[in-house]
C-alpha cells in the first residue's frame, strides 16, 4: 500500500489536516458555487414550477419550438462529425510531422476558442454571403450557405473545432511507437496499422472531443445568428427561440424551453464526465 492519502482526516475525530487552508478554501468554493452556479438555477425552477404540466408540455412541444430542436440537433450533429474528421486530421499533422509554420498553425487552432462569438458570426456571414469571398464561388456551384441551415453547420463547426483537436492531441502524443513499429515490421500496411492499432487507441479521446463539440454546438448562439437567417421552422436554433420568447415577454415559455436545453446539457455533461472517467484520464485544461 504505497498510495498514502494525505489530507484525509482519521475516523477517530482528531481532524487535523497537514496542509493548511481547508476550511477557508472549502468555504469560499462552496459560497461561490452556490451563489454563482446553483442559486440561479432555482430561479428557473421557480418559474417553471409556476406552470402546470399541461402548459409546460404545450410550450416545449410547440411546432416552432420542435422545429428548432430538429434544426439545432441536426446541425450540431453534422458539425460534430465534420469536426471529428477535420480535427483528427489537424491533430495528426500537428503531432506527427514537422513543417514550416507548425507552431503558428498549432497556436491558431485555439482561435475559434479565443475569438468572440459575435465576431465569428459576422465574419462567417460576410464570408459566405452571396457576394462574400467564399459565397461567390459557392453560388456558382449552386450552393447557398448564408441564411440557410448550412450556415448554421458552418458556424457550429468553426466554433467547436478546437475541442476535437485539443482532446486528441495529447493522446496522439502519448502513443508508443513500439506498437506501430511491431505491426509494420510484420508487414502491415499503413492503412491497416492505422485502422487496427492507432485508431482504437485514439477512439475514446476522439469520441470525447466530438461529444464536447456537440455539447458546445447545441448552445452556440453568437456565431450562428448572423449567418443562419433565423427563418422560423427552417433555420432557427433553440437558443434563438428562447431569446424570441423573451422579447415577447413570455418568460414562462422561455423558461420552459430553457429547462429542456439545460437538462439536455447537464445530461450530456454527466455522460461525458463518466465516459472520461472510464476511458481517459481527465483531459481538462485545453
Amino acid at each position, binding site marked *: 500500500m504505497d498510495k498514502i492519502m494525505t489530507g484525509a482526516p482519521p475516523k477517530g475525530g482528531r481532524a487535523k489536516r497537514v496542509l493548511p487552508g481547508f476550511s477557508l478554501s472549502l468555504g469560499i468554493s462552496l459560497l461561490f458555487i452556490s451563489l454563482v452556479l446553483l442559486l440561479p438555477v432555482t430561479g428557473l425552477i421557480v418559474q417553471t414550477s409556476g406552470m402546470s404540466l399541461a402548459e409546460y408540455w404545450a410550450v416545449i412541444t410547440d411546432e416552432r419550438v420542435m422545429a428548432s430542436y430538429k434544426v439545432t440537433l441536426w446541425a450540431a450533429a453534422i458539425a460534430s462529425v465534420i469536426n471529428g474528421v477535420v480535427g483528427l486530421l489537424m491533430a495528426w499533422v500537428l503531432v506527427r510531422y514537422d513543417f514550416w509554420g507548425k507552431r503558428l498553425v498549432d497556436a491558431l487552432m485555439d482561435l475559434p476558442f479565443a475569438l468572440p462569438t459575435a465576431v465569428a458570426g459576422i465574419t462567417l456571414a460576410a464570408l459566405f454571403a452571396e457576394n462574400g469571398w467564399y459565397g461567390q464561388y459557392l453560388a456558382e456551384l449552386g450552393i447557398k450557405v448564408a441564411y440557410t441551415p448550412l450556415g448554421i453547420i458552418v458556424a457550429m463547426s468553426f466554433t467547436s473545432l478546437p475541442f476535437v483537436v485539443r482532446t486528441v492531441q495529447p493522446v496522439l502524443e502519448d502513443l508508443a511507437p513500439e506498437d506501430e513499429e511491431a505491426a509494420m515490421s510484420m508487414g502491415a500496411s499503413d492503412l491497416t496499422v492505422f485502422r487496427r492499432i492507432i485508431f482504437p487507441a485514439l477512439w475514446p479521446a476522439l469520441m470525447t472531443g466530438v461529444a464536447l463539440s456537440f455539447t458546445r454546438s447545441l448552445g452556440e448562439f453568437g456565431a450562428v445568428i448572423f449567418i443562419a437567417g433565423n427563418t422560423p421552422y427552417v433555420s432557427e436554433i433553440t437558443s434563438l427561440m428562447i431569446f424570441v420568447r423573451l422579447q415577447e415577454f413570455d418568460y414562462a415559455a422561455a423558461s420552459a424551453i430553457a429547462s429542456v*436545453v439545460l437538462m439536455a446539457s447537464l445530461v450530456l455533461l454527466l455522460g461525458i464526465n463518466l465516459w472520461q472517467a472510464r476511458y481517459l484520464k481527465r483531459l481538462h485544461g485545453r
Partner: protein
Amino acid sequence: MKQYKSSLRVGERPWTKWLLIGTALTLTLLILVIPLVLIFAQALSGGVGTAWENLTDEYTLHAIGLTLFVAALTVPINLVFGVFLAWLVTRFEFPGRKALITLIDIPFAVSPVVAGLLYLLLYGSNGWLGSWLADHDVQLMFAWPGIVMVTVFVTCPFVARELIPLMQQQGSEEEEAGVILGASGWQLFRRVTLPNIQWALIYGVVLTNARAVGEFGAVSVVAGNIRGQTNTLPLHVELLYQDYNVVGAFVSASLLAGIALLTLLIKGIVEWRQSSQRSPEINPSEVR
C-alpha cells in the same frame, strides 16, 4: 514529451505525409487565416480615416470602456475563486470532492442564452430575488452589475481548469515539506505553490479575460435593449451590423480579434516557458 522520431511509423511515407500536411495547411488557411484577414480587410475597406472615426465614435468608446470594466471585475473574482477551488480539490480528500470538480464544468455545457436567462429570472424585477431588490431600489438586470454577474458565471471554470490538472500532477509533497519546515499557509502558497503554477495561472487569467471580453449570448439576454448605455463591445458589433454599418462593425470586431490574437500569443509564450522549465540542461557534476 518528445520521443525519438522513428521513420518506421504510420504516415511517414513522403507522399502520404505531404498530402496530409498540404490538406491541413489548406484547411487552416481557409478556416482560420482568411476569416482573420477578412475582419481587418473589412475594417479598413473604407480607408483608415473612416476606420478611425468608427473607432473613436462615442458609443464605441463607451462600449470599450464598459467591456474593460466588466473584465476588470470578472477576472480577479474568478482568479481568487479558481485558486481556492484548485487548492481545495487537489490538496485535500473529502466527500463530494469529485462532485465539485464536475460542478465547475457546468458553465461549459450550458448555452450562454440559458445562462443569461437563469440570471434574468432570478434577479430581474419579476424574479424572486429581483423583486425584493427592486423594492429596495436596486436594479441589477439591464445594468452593468447584471453583465458582470453573468460574465462571472460564464468564465468561472477557466482558471480552475488550468490549475487543477497541473496541481494534481505536481503532487503535494513540496507543500508538505514546506509545512514540516514550519511555513504558514500564506508562506506556503506564496513561496512553494505559486512559483510552480505561475504559467498556468497566467494563461488561465488571459483566457478568462478573453472570454469575458467576448461574451455575447448571455450578455444579450441580460443587458436588455438599452443600447448606448449597457452595450459591451460584442453587443455593439451586433448593433452596428444590424444597422448595416459594416465597416463600423468590423472595426470593433478587429479590436476584439486583436485581443484574441494577443491571447494566442501569450498562450504560445506560456507553453514555451513551461516546456523549457520542464527540462533544463541536466548537469550532474559528479555521480554521487
